[in-house]
């Protein structure tokens, strides 16, 4: 390593950029889910103090915002697998190719973060529906699950370039 330019080249190697994409997908979508699940958990613990028998229904609502984290994980895993870090020889990537993976990870990273939190909010208000009218709880689940649509679309747009990439 001689110059600052060499340092930059080393840090922003194709491999590292792809890894950065995987990290963003897992981390941001994971944060979204953690926050979302947390919001619902707070609401449901308050309700369960009054009526512990509704645990199952509350748990279903609490699990809903957890999927964004899984989508992020899946994207990260696919990237890591594609660049050969899981068994097999690591693939040599140009900086442009690494950046390609980084870009591809952005939809699920960003939408996962925001939709996880938004879905958590909807599910948390659904908890009060479960506590007052348990028979109608499927409606709360449905409206919370609709928020996830956009995480699924984002996942699709993240996955397609990664799957199409020929190494």
């Amino acid at each position, binding site marked *: 390593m001689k110059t600052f330019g060499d340092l930059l080249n080393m840090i922003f190697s194709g491999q590292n950029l792809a890894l950065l994409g995987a990290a963003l997908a897992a981390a941001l979508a994971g944060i979204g889910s953690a926050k979302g699940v947390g919001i619902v958990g707070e609401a449901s613990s308050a309700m369960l103090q009054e009526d512990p028998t509704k645990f199952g229904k509350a748990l279903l609502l609490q699990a809903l915002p957890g999927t964004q984290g899984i989508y992020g994980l*899946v994207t990260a895993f696919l990237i890591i*697998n594609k660049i050969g870090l899981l068994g097999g020889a690591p693939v040599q990537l140009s900086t442009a190719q690494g950046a390609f993976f980084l870009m591809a990870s952005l939809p699920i990273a960003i939408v996962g973060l925001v939709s996880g939190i938004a879905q958590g909010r909807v599910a948390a208000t659904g908890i009060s529906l479960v506590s007052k009218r348990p028979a109608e709880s499927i409606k709360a*689940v449905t409206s919370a699950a609709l928020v996830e*649509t956009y995480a*699924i679309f984002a996942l699709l747009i993240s996955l397609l370039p990664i799957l199409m990439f020929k190494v």
Partner: protein
Amino acid sequence: MAVTKMKRFRVLTLRDDSDSLFRLMQDLGCVDIEKEYAESPPDGAEALDMTSEDSEVKTRIAETGSALDFLAGYAASSKGLFSPPREVDRHSADNGRYRDEAYGYVKRAVEIKNEKTRLTSETQSLRNELAALKPWVNLDVPLPESSTVTTRSVAGLMAAKTDPETVLQSSGTFAAVAETLSVGKTHRYVLLTAHRDDYDEALSALTRAGFAPTPAKADEKSGFAKGRTAILLQKLRADEEKLREIDREAKALSEQADKIEVYHDLLTTDEARINATSKMAVTSKVGMITGWVPEAAVPSLSEKLDGYGDAYEFTDPTEEDDVPVLLKNNKFAKNFEPVVELYSLPKYGTFDPTFIMSFFYIVIFGMMLADVGYGLLISIGCFLGIGLMKPKKSMKNMLTMFGLCGISCIVMGVLFGGYFGDVPAVLAEKWFRVKPPRLALWFDPLTNFTTFLILSLAIGALHLVCGLCIKFYVLWKRGKKFDAVFDVGSWIILFLGAAVFLLSRTAGLVMVIAGLVMLVATQGRHNKNIFMKIVGGVGSLYSIIGYLSDLLSYSRILALGLASMVIASVFNILGTLPGPSVIGVIFFIVIFLIGHLLNMAINMLGTFVHTSRLQYIEFFGKFYEDGGRPFEPLTAESKYVNFK
């Protein structure tokens, strides 16, 4: 595939006969009793006060429920999760002797339940007192305090490591003795005896060092601690014997739980009837009942009523009536009624889309979860559940529906190559080092996703056009033929033209232009001004954007389908990482089970919600008129058993 036609049913009956009339209606289970008056009873009539009957039956239900909860703890064989409810003939069970017998059991169970609660808390306090007395059994002085002419004593506890004698000495000379009777793990038991004058000082010195008088109480009359202990022990023995006696009796009573369960359901049935009865309006002699009856049940009901000699009539509902809605569908489609009910029932007299929806539901569900493995698990689970649990009607419909959707998943899994994701391919490639087999019979959506997208949108287009056709049909039948042809028909021609365009350019183009011209020419027809007519016509084309966004919404079929496949394959790759060793195989099995269970759970929920959403928003949005009130006939309400 229709909303059942209802008749308004009115009957005038003698007040004394009304109970047997309600019993008859409850047996038939085909009358939805309506409150006879909206706010106050009609002139000359009054509301029937059933509050005392109602509160009595509610109390008995609560008692019976609490008795059953209590006895459940004693049942010899706990009922399995999947054991179906018993079938009981309500009429042979429902007689005064049976009810009295069962209520006797209930009262006894509640009595011994309360007695058990009392005894349990009593034995607990006895045990506490015995434990407090234990260190002092050899002490023949009253507890905790005693006195003679010149001295006073107190027995108490302090920390084991503190020596009370040193405490007393270091705090000055007192005419006091602190005798340690015994030392336990954490506490020592101390008897402080002091001259009356020095007692207070000595006690406060010890108290500062952590001394506390014992909670135990004993006096000379009871024979000090030893005598008191004996008395308490005797009491405890007696209580424990009573508790055992209660347990024996509860165990014996728990064998009558079957009878009590039937009694409970007889009571809930009474409650439903009392509730219906309170909706009557009565004069001193006559009662008037109003309700709704499905048209098909009218003959059997009137045949029964003729035996009563009451005046009754069946009339058609008027415009203002809030008629309850009962869906009527064939054996296949009725399983999908829960999906419609979840949204909202159609208004009375409007179109019931269940039959048409069920086909789209089943196809779209399968495409979103195209996997043979998951489909098998869903179908087996649902059909096994029906066989084992014998669930009630709505639950049974729901399970059948998911079972059918599971079969659709299997078919789609064969077409698009989903076998727990791509397990066969991954295993072949990673472990057996052979060329992975081609899994998909038709095509693999992971490599041909554009084809899958087009397929999704094509199904969407069909779904939307179907919705428009229903709208056309509904309008046409209501005599709004112009509206049907111009507002809906032109769109149908336009969309069909777009489809035909893919096959034949000219024919398609002609249809599209014809549709557009119809729209521009007719959509402004409600405006008076000729200029506004043109603006309205051209403006209507803006709706194309709405239809386009509806159509693109069906891309979620692709998104959910791919998501389930990719997540499954990620778990498969992860599981096969360690290679085909013994540990590797164990690792694979663990990852396989956890991963696919998780994936199945997430995607089943997602698939259910999004398949339903496509029906509710894209499909129902074209024609559906919601807001129907469900038909809830007076019938035998049961929780524990199924009444025949």
